Every structure is written in C-alpha cells, then in structure tokens.
C-alpha cells in the first residue's frame, strides 16, 4: 500500500465521501452543498461541527452519569421483601453471591467503560483544540478503541430486560425496571453519539 507522496485529500483539493469513500474534487466555496455523484450523500470535508457536537454529547453524558449511578435501575419483589438495585448495588450483590466474574464484567462494562470513554474523548478534544502534534498515531488508536468498545456498556440494560421478561411469577417474585435504567441508557447513547461526531482526521490536520 503506497502513500501517494504523503499528501492528504484535503491538501489535494479532494473530498472523501463519508458514505462510499469516493474522492470528489472539492466544489467551489460559493457553490453551496455538493452531493456525491456515486451515492448521493452530502459531501463534507470534515464531520460538520465535530468539536462542538462532541462537547455537547459529552456534557450530556456527564450530567446524566450521576442520576444513572445514583437512581435504582430495577426493583425486585419477592416473598422476603422488596429490594431496589442501582448499578453499583447490583455489582456488589453479584460479588457477595460469589459470582465474581459476572460482577467484574458488569462493573467494567457499565461503570468503568462509560467513564473512560468520556475521559478519552475529552482528552482527544482538548488535544485537537490545542493543535497538539503529540503522538498522533496513538491518539487515533485511542479513538478507534473508543468507538469499538462503547456499545458493550449496554449490557446492563439487556440484563434488566431479560430479568423483567422472565421474573414475573406474581405470587413468588416480580422484577420491574426503574428510572435509573433509562438515565443509564441515555449515558451510553450519548457517549456513542459523542464518539460518532468526533472526526479523527482533526488529529492529523494542522501539520506545520
């Protein structure tokens, strides 16, 4: 795979179609929006409003993180009583029941990953806004991992869904979802949108 003399598409006056990756000559500045001749998608040089949008989604995720962790995500009613579980109390319950690996999976996926995603994207945004040239390749890798891993945080939501579907033997036990769950789902979705709005090419722009 030979790099065509280390030129970026942007420097060559070309735009890469985000949908079908056709390279199209950049339209004149006053020509308004252009569309890809092959697939019809709108041609944008970089993801529109990437920095602003990513900040907005990250802020949303951070704001929602507190209620997502503090509010109960499900309520279990059995003959011995009613218990409310938050994400953390669910993890602790798994630990005290001896299900260590499960507790680790849920803790990592639901508590650690969203927080790390926010930290990583914040770091990427700040580094891009300061025009940093520090370890571009590694930063791109960080972005890639971020995008790939994000969806796995949804596992807790699906666990609640399955429990709600199965445990409804009214006399014996009943599980119901609680508001913490939708807050948590919103956090995961926000971080996913944040990763999708960030344009990794910004890491490589401004080569002096």
């Amino acid at each position, binding site marked *: 795979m030979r790099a065509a003399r280390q030129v970026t598409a942007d420097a060559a006056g070309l735009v890469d179609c985000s949908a079908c990756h056709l390279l199209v000559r950049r339209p004149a500045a006053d020509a308004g929006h252009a569309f890809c001749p092959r697939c019809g998608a709108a041609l944008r040089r970089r993801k529109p409003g990437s920095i602003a949008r990513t900040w907005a989604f990250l802020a949303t995720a951070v704001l929602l993180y507190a209620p997502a962790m503090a509010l109960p995500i499900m309520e279990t009613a059995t003959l011995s009583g009613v218990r409310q579980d938050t994400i953390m109390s669910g993890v602790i319950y798994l630990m005290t029941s001896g299900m260590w690996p499960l507790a680790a999976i849920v803790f990592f996926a639901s508590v650690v990953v969203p927080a790390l995603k926010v930290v990583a994207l914040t770091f990427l945004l700040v580094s891009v806004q300061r025009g940093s040239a520090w370890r571009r390749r590694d930063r791109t890798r960080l972005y890639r991992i971020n995008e790939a891993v994000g969806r796995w945080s949804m596992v807790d939501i*699906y*666990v609640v869904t399955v429990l709600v579907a199965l445990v409804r033997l009214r006399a014996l036990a009943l599980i119901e979802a609680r508001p913490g769950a939708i807050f948590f789902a919103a956090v995961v979705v926000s971080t996913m949108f944040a990763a999708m709005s960030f344009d990794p090419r910004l890491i490589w722009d401004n080569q002096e």
Partner: protein
Amino acid sequence: MKGTLLACHECDLLHRARPLPEGGTARCTRCGALLYRSRRGSLDRSLALTLAGLILFAVANAFPLLSMRVEANVQEATLLSGVVQLWDQEAFGLSALVLATSILAPLAKLLLLAAVLLPLRLGRTPAYVAPAFRLALGLQPWAMMEVFMLGIMVAMVKLADTADILPGPALYAFALLILVLAGVSSALDPHAVWDRLETA
C-alpha cells in the same frame, strides 16, 4: 479497485490502491487504519449469509428464548417479551430503545442488504440501491445483538441460583444469528458494491 485513489478515513492521507493477496488487508501507512480487505466472491457470500440471517431471525422470534421454572410455575420469554413487559411497566423509553437496538436495527440491516445485494447479483441496479446501502451501513453501530446475548448470559447465571433456567430453541437460533451477522460484516465488501453502482 486497482489504481484508485483512496483517502484514509481516519487521517485523510491519500493512497493508491493495489491488488491484495487472498485474505490480505491494506492499512494506512500513517495511522494504521484499515483501508480495505481482499474479499473474493464477496457478493455471493454476503447475500447467502444475509438470507440465512433473515431465516434465523424469523426462528429466533417465533419460538421461546428461555424459560424459568420455580416449583411448579413456568415462565417463558421470547425476544419480544422483554420489550412488551417494559412497555407494560410504563418504561416506554427503555422499551423502545431495546426494541430498536436488538430487533429493529438488525432486521432493517438484513432486509436492506438483501434488497441491495439481490438485484446486484442479478446484474441490475434499481434507483433505491444507493440510499438503501447507505442506510444499511449507517445502521451498523446500532445493531447490538451480541451485547444482548451477553446480557442474556449474565441474567441466566444470575437466576440460576434460585430457579431452573431452560434454553429454548430460539436461543440457539439467536446465537447462530449473531455468528451469521458477524459473517456478513466480514464478507461484505462495500467497495465492491459501490464499484458495481458506478459501472451501472
């Protein structure tokens, strides 16, 4: 594909495409992003897997996924049970989200791919193919069946202490479906599809 100019979608560097050995991958020389892979017979393989996926999808929804037995009480659940239950409990947002990510997105992706690959295989390119393919690719991050599968397994282990959890036929279909979906992603060569559209 030979000699075409390609831009890395992660660092914007221009590259000239070269033919690859069977199973080879082309990576950006500057940032290591995957540019394209050599996928022979991609159209046939993707189409076959897509159709298999649709059949498995039907099976996975038609039969019970799991059943839980405590003393004499048995509760069955299908893929949709959770969505319906959440809706009944007035957790509307949650219900809609689970429906969208575990059922609608994968189904839409399979249907759209079938609608794109089938005519292409028959040598035709109706007008809807380009937008349909774009939508199918766009839905990719929102189809979370494999995460759902992990959720099912965690829930099963959680309940195993207090009840008998029995897998239903749909569970096996679901597991196969996830493998098939992964197969579709790896067999599908978007460049080949776009090239066909261009030469139309």
